[in-house]
């Protein structure tokens, strides 16, 4: 498991004469500076190369040979690489180990380019934004969550970019942090973004890290914007019954969380994903409340001992024939209802007529 926040000391800039670097290496370092928390896959011909600490880490994690490259300095830069056609496999393995990977591509044909080939990051792959079928589980959502803390309250936005599901809520009752933990365990996200105030509450951050294996990163305050217009312009906002939701303007906690999540997704995908077009606003009181230990003890979706599905309630109830149905069943088991009419309307569907 990788450290949640990687320490990077790629190049000690104060003691190194930047001008001495080769032009390509200067571009590499500039790019790396923008993606400090990622492993940078830098396309050179038929390979993606990694340098400095990235190379050392990745060669260790993926058992690749560590070599070196002349970079204009006295010492050669540590380097390792993977062939471009097999890159997905290596990227996926890094994601599974809890790293983020930024992919820097050649943007022009080297045959026709003049001077150094133009390169830029075209996508950032993170545990919560991965789209590769070989990493995603068919019958399981892959959630990314953003938590915005303000005082004792929380705003929460959660999304599966591989399916387009997007939910948001606010927690403003008693035992807020306890409720937050319940909500996180409801989704069990693979990646969590948090704001500064939450990362400053050491006890809460520690608990989050202890209870969940999610990749947690702290994001700057400016992406937790309270501007509601962008959301309204791009998304349909509904309640759980698919009716228009009109209260969003007042929910600034949720707005902050939603904005940060959209910003992060667009920043990693380098585009505005068309499949994220609807946000479902919900109240957690609409569902039965189940804390982490109840979910685990009752073995609803995974066994306590080995996290497997066999021997769980999900295993008994899953006779679904599509992946979509499988994912929904898992969600329904995680979110039992409390409204009698809603429950009975489901029950009546199974009744023999």
């Amino acid at each position, binding site marked *: 498991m990788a450290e949640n926040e990687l320490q990077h000391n790629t190049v000690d800039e104060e003691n190194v004469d930047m001008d001495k670097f080769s032009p390509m290496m200067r571009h590499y370092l500039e790019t790396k500076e923008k993606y400090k928390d990622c492993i940078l896959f830098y396309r050179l011909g038929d390979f993606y190369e990694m340098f400095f600490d990235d190379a050392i880490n990745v060669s260790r994690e993926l058992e690749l040979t560590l070599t070196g490259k002349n970079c204009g300095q006295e010492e050669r830069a540590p380097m390792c690489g993977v062939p471009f056609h097999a890159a997905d496999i290596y990227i996926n393995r890094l994601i599974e180990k809890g790293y983020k990977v930024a992919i820097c591509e050649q943007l022009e044909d080297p045959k026709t380019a003049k001077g150094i080939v133009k390169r830029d990051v075209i996508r950032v792959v993170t545990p919560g934004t991965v789209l590769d079928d070989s990493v995603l589980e068919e019958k399981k959502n892959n959630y990314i969550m953003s938590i915005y803390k303000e005082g004792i309250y929380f705003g929460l936005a959660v999304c599966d970019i591989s399916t387009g599901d997007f939910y948001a809520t606010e927690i403003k009752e008693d035992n807020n942090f306890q409720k937050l933990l319940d909500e996180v365990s409801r989704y069990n996200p693979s990646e969590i973004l948090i704001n500064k105030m939450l990362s400053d509450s050491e006890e809460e951050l520690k608990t989050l890290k202890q209870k969940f294996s999610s990749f947690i990163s702290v994001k700057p305050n400016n992406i937790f914007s309270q501007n509601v217009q962008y959301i309204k312009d791009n998304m349909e906002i509904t309640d759980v019954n698919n009716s228009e939701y009109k209260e969003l303007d007042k929910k600034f906690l949720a707005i902050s969380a939603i904005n940060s999540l959209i910003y992060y997704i667009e920043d990693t995908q380098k585009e505005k994903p068309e499949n994220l077009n609807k946000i479902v606003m919900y109240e957690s009181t609409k569902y039965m409340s189940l804390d982490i230990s109840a979910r685990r003890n009752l073995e609803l979706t995974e066994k306590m001992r080995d996290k497997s599905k066999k021997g769980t309630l999900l295993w008994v109830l899953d006779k*679904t024939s599509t992946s979509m149905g499988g994912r929904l069943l898992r969600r329904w088991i995680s979110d039992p209802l409390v409204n009698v009419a809603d429950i009975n309307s489901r029950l009546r569907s199974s009744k023999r007529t």
Partner: protein
Amino acid sequence: MYDIERLSSKISYGSANARDLISLKNSVSQLPDLKNTLSSAQSELLSSLYKELDTLDDIFQLINISIVDDPPITIKEGGIIKKGYDDDVDRLLDVTENGKKYLLDIEAKEKEQTGIRTLRIGYNKVFGYYLEVSKSFVNMVPQDRFIRKQTLANGERYITEELKNLENEIVGAQERIVNLEYDIFSNIRNEIEKNVKRIQTSANIISKIDVLCSFANVAKSQNYCMPVVDNSNIIEIKEGRHPVIEKILDTGAFVQNDSYLDGESNRLNIITGPNMAGKSTYMRQVALITLMAQIGSFVPATEAHIGVVDKIFTRVGASDDLSMGESTFMVEMMEVASILNNATSKSLVILDEIGRGTSTYDGMSIAWAVAEYISKIKAKTLFATHYHELIKLEGTLEGTKNYHVAVKERGEDVIFLRKILEGGTDESYGVHVAKLAGVPKEVTSRANDILRGLERKSIIKDTNMTKSERQEEQGQLSMFNYKLAEIAHELDKVKLDEITPIDALNILSKIKEKMK
């Protein structure tokens, strides 16, 4: 039916290939049938899904007319677009397949028109395709159409506009097809992308139908019943089974149990009985049946009445938080604290062996106090404990009822029937469990001896013994004292300096006789 939800995302991110579109088409093609099947559905939910289901016919049509049925994985090598969809693609395909034939056609046509028998088509790298005419026929060449390109010793080479047009199409046709097909494919994908929301909505409906069908199938194959769900404060289950264990065991091997909880006189069930006897299974079963009812599934019972609960809490066995450095007991108490602070009168609480992680008296006191507190909250609670003292709560603590696990004794052996019955028990059968688990006989029989010894001692101490028991006990004691007094008297009479060792032995044997 493929994962059209994730397919639609792939389309949104521009990463869908032609095969993905074919998967989408094949899935969408089943929607009219699905809709047809739903049309006869009786339930409100299903019929509203029927109304909302968009069969996406236009998407099916679009892919059906444009993309070949078995396209390659890559979208950059052509072979994707169906014949008849795009004129340019068709023409280019035609040229690549039939180019040679068209050249020969031109040759034949020109031969006939000019009457030059020796006219033939050729190719060189300098100026491509040409028509070659031998010297003797040069005067028959039509000057208006033929453009002379090269003079040879025995003839002339010409081009015509028609020939050059064909050449332009043939040369690079492959490359142009690949690019053209890619562009057309991207356009189709973009067109579908505009409809992503519709696809998502249909995917959503399909998943709901899928889950509801799954519920119905499981209900039928596992013989579940439809629970009555309302806002009452009652949980009543007749012949309930544990859904998972029932499925793992052979059919019928699982022992069914009734349950009854309400917010009043039956809100705290104290369940005593040995470990391993099925207490935990029983309690989880009640929680799972309640939860299943609330997700809208039928439940493993013959009858069930579930008043909706707002929260389910469980405090069961050792938690997996152990590995995270906190002591078992601390974790246990944190969980208990969270339950006591958050449970309401609408909650269902499962407490299994509270206080186990500390000393007996500590643990029992905590269990006792927790039971009292939870009874005040009025949460419906199942409380399993091996502290038999807690059975005394029935009658004194409001809403408490005792239950125990039925046990059948056969000689030395004990069989746990896994049946939960009303009333408390004071046997713990721990030693029997040890025996079942394969602990060596020497240990279990020694444990049995110690247990008997301890029980005897506790009888002496126990102030709760019945009067007759106590009198009997006291009678035995006074008898004993009387004997001791007699022996003391006898010993007092003995003069040690006057008797022989034989006499001493005789006296000792007399005393022993008296003690019997």
